[in-house]
């Protein structure tokens, strides 16, 4: 099956010589929910940014939704992101000046096409009837649901989630993770999530552990306790 995200020996070196990613290779097939974990500074955010085309890799090859983004120009890359990729960030990244509905319709306002009606998507993330509310009046959990709705509305091939539950309590966080899980299972969306929370990672199908910019483990996701155990192991070796 065609991978929605495919990294081949991807490296990312920052201007001062820091090597954040070392020849990382990773394939995410459609419908798979992948969690990337690692200590602070292990390169997990850089991995997500490079895979999503938000940051430029300095070595290797990145394919996103079937297209080689390595040589894609900025505008074309942005259009690819708009049409085929969804994002969920820890800090929500909604436009506080717009309403819930306007935020979800944003990709269309920016020239994209909506795969599903805004109201239907809002209904599916549990925000039915809140379309006209200003985003500023919502709770954190509701805001993150808006972000998920905005990520889903274009019918993306892949969703990138950067600590999506980092600012939420466990119950609210679980609801957001449930939405991502559903997107993977029902809509066959590939999900690549970066997190430091073993409980959040336990919702995934596959767990990738990073240390010093290298993949040190890649396999089916075990139980949360076992994840925490493995994570401690990786960090201990790193320290």
């Amino acid at each position, binding site marked *: 099956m065609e991978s929605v995200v495919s990294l081949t020996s991807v490296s990312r070196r920052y201007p001062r010589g820091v090597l954040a990613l070392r020849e990382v290779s990773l394939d995410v097939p459609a419908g798979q929910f992948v969690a990337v974990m690692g200590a602070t500074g292990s390169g997990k955010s850089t991995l997500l940014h490079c895979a999503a085309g938000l*940051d430029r890799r300095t070595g290797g090859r990145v394919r996103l939704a079937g297209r080689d983004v390595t040589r894609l120009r900025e505008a074309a890359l*942005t259009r690819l992101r*708009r049409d085929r990729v969804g994002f969920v*960030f820890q800090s929500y*990244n909604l436009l*506080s*000046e717009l309403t819930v509905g*306007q935020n979800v319709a944003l990709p269309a306002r*920016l*020239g994209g096409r909506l795969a599903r009606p805004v109201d239907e998507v809002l209904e599916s993330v549990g925000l039915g009837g809140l379309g006209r509310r200003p985003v500023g009046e919502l709770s954190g959990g509701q805001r993150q649901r808006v972000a998920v709705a905005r990520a889903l509305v274009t019918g993306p091939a892949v969703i990138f989630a950067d600590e999506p539950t980092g600012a939420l309590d466990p119950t609210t966080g679980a609801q957001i993770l449930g939405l991502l899980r559903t997107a993977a299972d029902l809509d066959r969306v590939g999900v690549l999530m970066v997190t430091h929370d073993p409980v959040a990672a336990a919702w995934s199908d596959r767990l990738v552990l990073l240390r010093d910019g290298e993949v040190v483990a890649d396999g089916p996701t075990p139980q949360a306790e076992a994840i925490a155990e493995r994570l401690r192991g990786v960090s201990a070796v790193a320290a």
Partner: protein
Amino acid sequence: MIRQALRRNPWSFLGPAATQCLAAALVTASLCLIASFGGAPLSRAQRQAMTDSGVPDIAVLFVMISIYLSILIVGVTMSSAIRHQARDIALVRAVGATPARVRRSVAAQAALVAVPATLAGVPLGILGGHAWLGGFVRHGIVPAEVTFRLHGGMLPIALAVTVGTSLLGALIAAVRPSRVRPAVALAESAAPRLRIGVARTLIGILLVTGGVVLSVLIAGLDADTADQAGFFVMLAMCVGAGFLGPALLRAAAPLGRLLGDTGRLAADTLAVHARALSGALVPLTLAVAFAAVTITRSATTTHVTGVPAPAADRWLEFSGTGAYASFAAIAALNALVTLILARRRNLAVTRLAGGTRGRTLAVVVCEALMVIGTALVVAAAVAAVTLLPLLHATLDTWVPWLPASWLAAGIAGTALLVLAGTVLPAALALRRPPIEVAG
């Protein structure tokens, strides 16, 4: 808190500092004109001739206009700078600062910016006044014996105007964030209030109505009095338009929907930023209306009477108007830049949501077009209300006349100013990768 706020947001105080500096320069220059005219060693006949020409009266009028303009524009920029701090104010309130303490620190901030800006503006005004007086002599408006003199009161008067107005503007802007409960203030800074205050609308309507009534009264007066009162009609209308600004912009927003998807996004955004944008609308309207009234009046006079006004008279009028219009234009420019800089993060979020750099910039251009349109329409209305009775009183006509090329130049100038204040800083802000800005 003061030092922290100044260090953290040096940009947001650049605007007030620039307008304070220019205000001090304008007040100083016009005060020095008075001193130069009054102190010149003239023979009795020469002095009589100068008094008869009305030039000393015009200098007094210049001082008054400068002071009024400074109060208005410095007040507007200072209060908008403080409004950008609403979140910080809410935070220090939450950790235990009393409302009085917040007000004291806001006042100290205003003074801390205003005093050095004024001290820089006064020498600038001396230079400008020197050049201005040179023009008077060169055009034969005053005899060559009139030499440049400093006005003894320029420093205290300039300080009083800028510091006083800054304090007033800052304190008025701080009333709400310092008085409401911190939790409410924090929530509000996250989600700006959309409702436009009833008091605000009422004051706006009152001022505009007052301007119109005054203007109707002027139409029946003699030409000289009408001339001098015309300025106050314009001032009342412009301040009124400023109070009504958010409502006006929100009324203009639906027009953006005609510009397609990008325009609709711009319209939605504009409606929310209407309050902050009205800080740019007041000086913009003032600048355009000022220029429109002076130029149209001169053109109509030439057109109706068939004789162009003497070059000296034209220079006198245009030099004054030029100074005020540029002052107001600079204030408008800085209000627009401040707003765009405050929205850097939102621009980055738009990029993350799939907006290309060009698309995101197009949203800003659409917003700018709506601001330009609103400012031009409001300024044209203000200019018409000010000018028509004046034309009737002096030329006995109701029909203004303006060459098409001048009109086009005016529109282009306004458009250029607004685009420079919005698109340029937005384009610069968009150069950074969005993920770095939004995180």
